[in-house]
């Protein structure tokens, strides 16, 4: 019989062996509630009846849909539904089996996509954030020491936020403070500064994962029609946020503050910084509180998670982008279990030296989060 060769796998896969040996720090892992009822044990009984009688009031634009999960159920890999039920990310054992164990993950930084920050009823929002943190602590970080939570805070109520940060301060299970990025005002505004003051004083980075609703379109060009547009536009909204933090002078007032921009790309950073520097050189008199070039704040105070890593036609272009960005700025992330997850063995289709790998896949994150 004639051997009839089928098609070959043409996409060059980098050798997984060298990366597989690495211990990784995954800077974007999504756990999930099995049900919103999971939070009730941590909420006063007043809220139990309130949630039944009135529910939540979120400024969500589409009446029957969140603006996000569009391409796959629960926004997730279709193979990530736990065999014992519940949505993707809700079963610790399955998360260990599918993510932490096979990829040799030393630490996984948890980002819950739910927050109380965009709840209009601020008392309910505050109670929700506190309940989320209690739940994260009991059911995730205490059960697997590799997992580190973010303190979820009601950022539109800074005094309540500071109280919640201080409630967990010093607890090694919490590695950062999480704000929703679609806030009522750009996050550089002074109303949010008490949060930054508390976080900087405690050495906790601010984790900024695209999330939340503020009633505005994700893009300043208006409401987009397609998810394929929005998937990109959330990155633009994060650029606006970074520019706000820099230009309002947050990092001038709190030079030790660290901001981690999660899941918004990183190739845009050099060009945004170049343009801002150019504007600053001409309009510095408008923002005399900025004593350095905008790019210097980007280089000193902001880090970026890697996923979804861009896939340029020539993989080497990504290396150039990293040279411009600074290799110490990038924190590897999978985004498990979401549909656009990056595999540590397959993301970045260009060769990195061992030293570069150690930086991107672990050591940058270890330094930012002060992990042992």
């Amino acid at each position: 019989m004639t051997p009839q060769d089928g098609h070959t796998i043409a996409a060059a896969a980098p050798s997984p062996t060298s990366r597989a040996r690495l211990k990784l720090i995954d800077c974007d892992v999504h756990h999930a509630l099995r049900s919103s009822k999971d939070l009730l044990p941590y909420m006063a009984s007043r809220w139990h009846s309130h949630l039944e009688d009135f529910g939540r009031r979120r400024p969500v634009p589409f009446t029957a849909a969140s603006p996000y999960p569009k391409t796959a159920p629960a926004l997730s890999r279709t193979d990530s539904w736990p065999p014992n039920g519940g949505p993707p990310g809700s079963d610790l054992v399955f998360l260990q089996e599918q993510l932490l164990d096979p990829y040799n993950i030393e630490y996984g930084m948890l980002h819950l996509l739910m927050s109380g920050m965009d709840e209009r009823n601020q008392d309910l929002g505050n109670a929700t954030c506190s309940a989320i943190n209690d739940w994260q602590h009991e059911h995730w970080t205490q059960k697997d020491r590799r997992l580190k939570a973010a303190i979820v805070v009601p950022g539109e109520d800074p005094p309540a936020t500071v109280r919640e940060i201080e409630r967990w301060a010093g607890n090694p299970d919490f590695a950062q403070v999480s704000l929703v990025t679609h806030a009522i005002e750009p996050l550089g505004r002074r109303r949010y500064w008490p949060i930054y003051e508390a976080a900087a004083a405690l050495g906790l980075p601010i984790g900024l994962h695209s999330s939340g609703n503020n009633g505005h379109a994700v893009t300043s060009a208006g409401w987009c029609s397609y998810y394929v547009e929005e998937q990109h536009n959330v990155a633009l909204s994060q650029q606006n946020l970074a520019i706000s933090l820099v230009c309002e002078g947050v990092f001038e007032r709190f030079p030790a503050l660290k901001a981690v921009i999660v899941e918004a790309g990183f190739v845009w950073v050099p060009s945004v910084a170049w343009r801002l520097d150019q504007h600053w050189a001409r309009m510095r008199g408008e923002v005399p509180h900025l004593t350095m070039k905008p790019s210097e704040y980007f280089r000193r105070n902001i880090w970026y998670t890697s996923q979804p890593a861009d896939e340029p036609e020539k993989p080497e272009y990504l290396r150039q982008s990293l040279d411009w960005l600074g290799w110490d700025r990038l924190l590897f992330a999978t985004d498990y279990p979401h549909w656009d997850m990056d595999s540590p063995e397959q993301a970045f289709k260009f060769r990195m030296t061992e030293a570069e790998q150690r930086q991107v896949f672990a050591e940058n994150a270890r330094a930012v989060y002060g992990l042992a």
Partner: protein
Amino acid sequence: MARHIVASAGEIPPGGRKLVTVRGREIGIFNQGGAYFALLNRCPHQGAELCKGTLIGLATSRGPGHFELTRRGEMLKCPWHGWEYDIRTGQSWCDPNDTKVRAYPVTVISGEALVQGPFIAETFPVAVEQDYVVIDV
């Protein structure tokens, strides 16, 4: 390269699939309206288990405002990033020149012919009166 018996003909219903391991490779066998196709269970993009993906149709358009859904059940959508592959060829729809999943030839052969060999039946019992799905690996 050898021929491997991987299923009896009635075992995989139309629209169904079976995952098999042949010579260390995980391979998905698909029955598309009575025709069989076999693809390696690994997405060339980031290595997901491709053959556990959803079988979908091909959405095409001759311009904004028009769309057609054709070839229902013939495109395999990766469980992770949703890359679409033609189950007949393993070819990627969005990157047909550079990205292909390895596809294996599949034939249906009668048990009577099979017992004459040379075939590798793994541990598959072969009955003369039945037909079998055979792949070349």
